[in-house]
């Protein structure tokens, strides 16, 4: 009996923790999106006002931001400076993909991050600005979408975690 009670408590605890973890992931995702928004703004500044090339811009912005963005941007910039002989988009995608596990962005948001490399470096300054502006708008949409529902979602995840735990306890015990 004691074992059953101990097991139930552990299951309830684990369920609760899962709920809290999911809530924290939401907060983390919002933080990542806000950080990404700042990165896009900084890239715009680097390209428009400093007239930096893409590797320069990535290195400069990378040195001004935090993990995992800093490491990812610096690595992309350094790799481009190696002139490996591959298109920008291919190299950007490869570097971003290697940091997949460091982000809690949704699949769609992560695909957007990868897709940012698609039009960078192509055509003129106006094109770079338009492309970054488009990314900026999309990220803003992600952020506003999350901010509107985050508080409720966190509560929901917490409840679901505990409820899930109770359900498992009821089924097993």
């Amino acid at each position, binding site marked *: 009996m004691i074992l059953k009670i101990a097991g139930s408590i552990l299951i309830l605890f684990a369920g609760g923790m899962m709920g809290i973890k999911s809530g924290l992931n939401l907060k983390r995702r919002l933080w990542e999106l806000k950080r990404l928004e700042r990165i896009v703004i900084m890239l715009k500044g680097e*390209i428009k006002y400093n*007239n*930096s*090339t*893409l*590797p*320069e811009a990535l290195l400069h912005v990378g040195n001004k931001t935090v993990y995992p963005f800093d490491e990812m941007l610096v690595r992309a910039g350094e790799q*481009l*400076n190696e*002139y490996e*002989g591959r*298109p*920008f988009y291919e190299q950007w995608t490869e570097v971003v993909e290697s940091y997949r596990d460091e982000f809690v962005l949704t699949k769609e948001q992560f695909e957007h991050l990868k897709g940012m490399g698609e039009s960078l*470096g192509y*055509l*003129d*300054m106006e*094109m*770079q600005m338009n492309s970054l502006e488009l990314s900026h708008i999309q990220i803003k949409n992600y952020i506003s979408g999350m901010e509107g529902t985050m508080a409720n979602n966190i509560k929901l995840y917490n409840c679901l975690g505990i409820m899930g735990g109770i359900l498992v306890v009821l089924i097993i015990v």
Partner: protein
Amino acid sequence: MKNENDLIRLFSINIRNRLKMLRLDIDRLQEIRMRINGPMILKYAGREYIVEENGGIGQVSQRPYIVVQNEMRETMEYISNYSLYAFEDEIRQGFITVQGGHRVGISGKVVVEDGHIKTIKYISSINIRISHEVKGCATKVLNSIYNANSIYHTLIISPPGCGKTTLLRDLVRQLSNGTQKRRGLTVGVVDERSEIASCYMGIPQNDVGVRTDVLDCCPKDKGMMMLIRSMAPEVIAIDEIGGMEEINSIKYAINCGCRMIATVHGSSLEDVNRRYGVNSLIRDEIFERCIILDKIRGVGNVTAIYDMSGKEVIRL
């Protein structure tokens, strides 16, 4: 010596491999020309060679290596470091300066908007002129431009490809470092095309001396004003003067007490004297020394040095 890899990595992978196979001595390489659907031509040690399909080179080739459109596109991507947008102003002038100071001339379809060149698209041929740093090449003219306390205002006259930028760069280096008998002078360089100091991210890649300040990619006329106001140079060095604004700025800089070294395209003093604008500098005896270069006895051959009255100071 320039880094060979810095140059070779500017090309598409196929071309890179061929150039690596050639094991060229970059110090003797002067030009690489590429044209879509045409052969790749190198100017090496004063002679032209065609790159062959099998990786060799020859002055006449039965099977030349033909450059295709994709290779040109890829090469332009590397030349611009994946960022053609960052070179819009330079492309409008028809060239890009890359790391190492090499100048890439471009031709293709010119897009004109409101009477102004907007860009060049469908780039069909490029000409990479290899920048060379020849330390000591100015030693033979150095004493001729020194006066009691400083230097004479000096104009270097030469046709294209005769080494006037190389001579100017070494003059800057030697004046800036000074010699055992002469103190070093503070030199300001307005390097509009990044050919003198070859700055990369603001840092000179060429040795331009310990007392040299460089304004990289800055229009010459504005750069001279900026240097005078901010860096108080004793000597200002500029390459390839021509426009009226530049000429007015030279006069202003000289009035401010700066000594001036400049280069100009031309084959002789008479040739420059016929050119509107620049001739006023000669007529008004602004320059006190004129160094004439040609390449009859090799690039950078100094034929004569004249004083302000057109009298030959030295014939070499």
